[in-house]
């Protein structure tokens, strides 16, 4: 039985602003196994980035507030660690890469130095050794080590993202959080970067939480998938479960909204309406106002997690229990 690298239990996160009280994450539980790549799929405002930032406790609070929940990592509850202990984890045991490579790098320092700095922050080694390791990382991401002393502006978007990945993996973390890492890149560059990430992932046996809205990327990169909607995980399973045996009406709606390369239908089938207002706490299912199959029960009572097949969990009243 593979170990779980990360276990999130009942995470609840809210944003308290002058205007409103936003229920960003509403009781999310998730396990990440060692060496596994899990996709967190959802649209803007679903809460995926909030979940990732909560793991590293880098949410701006105020206005964010982690109300309850536990995140077990490497034998400790990350919610209970002191700031100093968290610093030992960030960048070292858990690393994160963000969407926009243009602003992720410090423009006044060389790329090599930035990787070196990441290494030296967490390892008591000599400067020479750190430089050597940084060069190794650069080569690993496909950048010639001779470019060590160049500045970020001398690199293109795709190369910058590779540098960011090199920085993140420099300390060989157990878990990598990747927040839409290729969304800002061109399609052909995206292909290069994803291929590189796949290689690295296998070499270093890192677990990855990949946040994305692109189901194509999920199909190519992820072992398991969690579909996030309005701050909840509405469906969870292996990639096969989600793609071949799609269960939750929202996930079905997402697939139907995609323009496919191999259909001849003349109109897409979008999900009607908009995502639920995050300041509202509905009595029933959060998807009930847009769900084509919604019943009265759906609107009145929050649905339970149902295991429709081993390991495939759906939060819905209308999907029967397993066997």
């Amino acid at each position, binding site marked *: 039985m593979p170990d779980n690298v990360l276990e999130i239990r009942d995470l609840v996160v809210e944003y308290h602003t002058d*205007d*409103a009280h936003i229920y960003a994450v509403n009781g999310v539980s998730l396990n990440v196994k060692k060496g596994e790549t899990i996709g967190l799929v959802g649209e803007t405002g679903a809460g995926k980035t909030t979940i990732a930032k909560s793991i590293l406790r880098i949410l701006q609070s105020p206005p964010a507030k982690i109300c309850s929940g536990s995140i077990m990592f490497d034998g400790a509850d990350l919610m209970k660690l002191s700031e100093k202990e968290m610093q030992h984890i960030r960048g070292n045991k858990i690393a994160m890469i963000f969407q926009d490579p243009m602003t992720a790098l410090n423009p006044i320092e060389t790329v090599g130095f930035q990787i070196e700095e990441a290494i030296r922050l967490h390892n008591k080694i000599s400067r020479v050794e750190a430089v050597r390791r940084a060069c190794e990382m650069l080569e690993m991401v496909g950048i010639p080590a001779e470019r060590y002393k160049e500045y970020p502006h001398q690199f293109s978007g795709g190369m910058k993202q590779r540098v960011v990945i090199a920085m993140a993996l420099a300390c060989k973390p157990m878990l990598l959080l990747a927040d839409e890492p290729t969304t800002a890149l061109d399609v052909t560059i995206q292909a290069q970067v994803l291929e590189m990430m796949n290689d690295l992932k296998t070499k270093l046996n890192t677990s990855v939480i990949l946040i994305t809205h692109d189901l194509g990327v999920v199909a190519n990169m992820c072992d398991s998938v969690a579909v996030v909607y309005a701050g909840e995980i509405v469906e969870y399973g292996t990639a096969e479960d989600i793609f071949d045996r799609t269960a939750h009406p929202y996930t079905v709606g997402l697939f139907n909204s995609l323009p496919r390369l191999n259909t001849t239908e003349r109109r897409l089938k979008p999900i009607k309406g908009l995502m639920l*207002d995050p300041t509202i706490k509905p009595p029933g299912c959060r998807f009930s106002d847009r769900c084509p199959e919604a019943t009265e029960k759906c609107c009145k009572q929050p649905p339970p997690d149902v295991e429709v097949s081993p390991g495939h969990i759906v939060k819905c009243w209308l999907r029967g229990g397993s066997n």
Partner: protein
Amino acid sequence: MNEAYRKKRSRFGEVVRRLKKNKAAVFSVFVLIIIVLVGIFADYLAPYPYDQQNYSLSFAKPSPEHWLGCDQLGRDILSRLIYATRQSLQLGILATAIAGILGITLGCIAGYYGGWVDMVIMRFLDIYQSIPMFLLCVTLAAVMGPSLRNAVLAIGISTVPLPARLMRASILTVRNQEFIEAARMCNASNRRIILKHIIPNAIAPVIVSITMTVGMNILAGASLSYIGLGAQPPIPEWGTMVADARNIMRDHAILALYPGLCIMITVLACNLLGDGLRDALDPRLKN
């Protein structure tokens, strides 16, 4: 139902609402309103004329007839302070208005048209800014005689570059936004684009700056009056009142303190309001 929480508010309403939350800014607005009203209704509020001298009351202590006492010439201090409000406000507001209107116009033209127009205007402002304000004032005073009006002119003209540069910078940002291209696609004339689309969206930082400039100009005016280049006696002005007390400060420091406090309160109110406006007009409002 989903939009229940999005109350329909114009952007102006949003700004006012945010401003109301800043207690210092709200307080400053009240203070400034009172000061302006005092200035407008000075004739009715002041118990005595500002130039009524009475040597028997020289350096009189505060009493029911003279709430703040009298100065060395027996003039009622409170009345003089009240009348002085007019002069000081004129310096602050008129001078800022001159600088604002000229500066915004120059900045708009430079920012919108760019190219050599921009270059000419900016170099002109560079040269302009190298002339110190006091020098300009002294020159004007020498040529036209020292007076409040000339001080207002001098201060106004010498502070044009700041709003001009701010406006230009703001316009450069707004000009590249897609909704300006969209306006062009609707066949909007340049004039319409500048007046209707660019200025309303670019003016926020300039408003903040101008609010704080009022305070700055009151100070500048007081300084000019202190050296005799502003309001001329017997018309009272806070700066001249401080100057009058210059020689007797060791024994009668209070005569300098009253006008000094007035200057301080007014300038502080302007600055606090400016700060509050800057927060309320924060670009994050756009998201």
